């Protein structure tokens, strides 16, 4: 015969006393504890304690008059109605009040100069915060963000068989088309998601550049290239292999160096490297070239 374990039934006994068991569960429990004096004593203890608590609270309830409670609450409603709280004013300023509350609050506001002053203070504080936030955003240099994104894309391209431009003494990079490039990239990836994200980033960078095709300057791969800028030209002192370079704008950017990479022989990617990254790069670093910033993403 299976031994009865009182502790095992403890939680079930409480659930039964609390009316949380189904009829069949209750029958099963009653059958189980019928033969156990300790379990039955626990049921009695729970009943007894619950009854004591209820008696204690009921005694207090019976000893106080509730006749005046409503009049106290009503007076409280009227007193509080006379003065809008800061929370109500805040909700009004934030456009969170609706219906009856909005109408009542507006009426009370009209009758309360002090509430109007407090509302003005709340609104003024909001304006100050917004203007400060706006000033911070306006004064923030987002170039480092762009550099990080650009570098990440370049690393991905290299990792998937792309190349950065090298001096002409290095082997000619394999020329394959865009479609082949994309197929190869997708086929070789462990993560389709990463592929999609990379492709999207590359597209974001390249499409605006390619769209400015009318302004492009093409050169033969083997010639000494020059990058023509809107305000002059710069001749590549290291005889880099540059096929197509589109320059949107020239930004003076002391402290940074620029690496020009060609992707696939057709679509150039312009990298902007910080000075501290220079030693880590395998790509060619052009020491005197001002920064070339592709269109922001």
């Amino acid at each position, binding site marked *: 015969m299976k031994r009865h374990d*009182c*502790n095992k039934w*403890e*939680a079930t*006994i*409480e*659930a039964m006393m*609390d*009316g*949380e068991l189904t009829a069949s569960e209750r029958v099963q429990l009653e059958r189980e504890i019928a033969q156990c004096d*300790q379990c039955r*004593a*626990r049921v*009695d*203890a*729970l009943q*007894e*304690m*619950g009854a*004591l*608590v*209820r*008696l*204690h*609270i*009921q*005694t*207090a*309830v019976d*000893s*106080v008059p*509730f006749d005046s*409670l*409503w009049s*106290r*609450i*009503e007076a*409280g*409603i009227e007193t*509080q109605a006379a003065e809008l*709280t800061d929370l*109500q004013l805040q909700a009004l300023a934030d456009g969170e*009040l*609706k*219906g*009856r*509350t909005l109408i*009542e609050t507006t009426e009370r506001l009209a009758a309360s100069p002090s509430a109007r002053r407090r509302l003005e203070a709340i609104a003024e504080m909001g304006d100050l915060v917004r203007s400060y936030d706006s000033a911070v955003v306006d004064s923030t240099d987002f170039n480092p963000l762009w550099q990080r994104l650009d570098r990440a894309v370049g690393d991905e391209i290299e990792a998937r068989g792309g190349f950065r431009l090298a001096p002409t003494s290095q082997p000619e990079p394999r020329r394959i088309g865009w479609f082949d490039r994309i197929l190869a990239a997708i086929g070789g990836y462990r993560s389709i998601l990463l592929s999609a994200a990379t492709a999207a980033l590359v597209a974001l960078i390249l499409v605006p550049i390619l769209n400015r095709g009318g302004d492009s300057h093409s050169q033969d791969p083997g010639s000494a290239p020059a990058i023509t800028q809107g305000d002059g030209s710069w001749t590549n002192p290291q005889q880099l292999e540059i096929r197509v370079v589109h320059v949107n704008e020239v930004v003076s950017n002391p402290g940074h160096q620029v690496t020009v990479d060609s992707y696939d022989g057709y679509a150039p990617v312009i990298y902007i490297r910080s000075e501290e990254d220079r030693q880590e790069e395998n790509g060619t670093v052009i020491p005197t070239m001002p920064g070339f910033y592709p269109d922001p993403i």
Partner: protein
Amino acid sequence: MEDSDLNLVKRVKNGDKEAFRILVERYQKKVFSIAYGMVHNREDAMDLTQDAFLKAYHNLEQFEGSSSFYTWLYRIAINVSIDMIRRSGKHVLVDYDDRLLRDTEHAEGGLMPSTLGVDPQRTYGRKELLEQIDRALADLSPIHKEAILLREVEGLSYQEMAEVMGVSKGTVMSRLHHARRNLQARLLTYVEQKDAP
């Protein structure tokens, strides 16, 4: 036919203060019971009852009817009570970790078989009993008081308690169990002290 809570709430939202009076009269004793069980003083409990209804009135727009009006009201009553306890500094509002308590309590055995069972022959007067239960309740942490009151006094189901307390049903069961054990242990302590020569 008696108006439902939700219908009365709707009327109050449309500016019918009389509907709020009906809600007050319907729940004033329930709210007072919670407040008294939390703070153990009639005057304070009555003030808290008034505060709870005033807060309910001014925040009624936030009550969307997804839960029962009374579970929403009980939550307000408990919050104002806990605020008063906090201000008075009489209790440290420690959120007991029931998982930690469980180990020690199992080591001591299960729920004790009888609340006042140390001496079955001992008889207690009504006043004495009420004093003991008052002291025992007062010693409980606020979250254990809350569990005992919502179940034993208000008769809420575990699901309703979970809504009021903002926890899962499993946590309700755990808190209730430990609240009962703590309450019983305190009652026994007082009985033993009383019976000591």
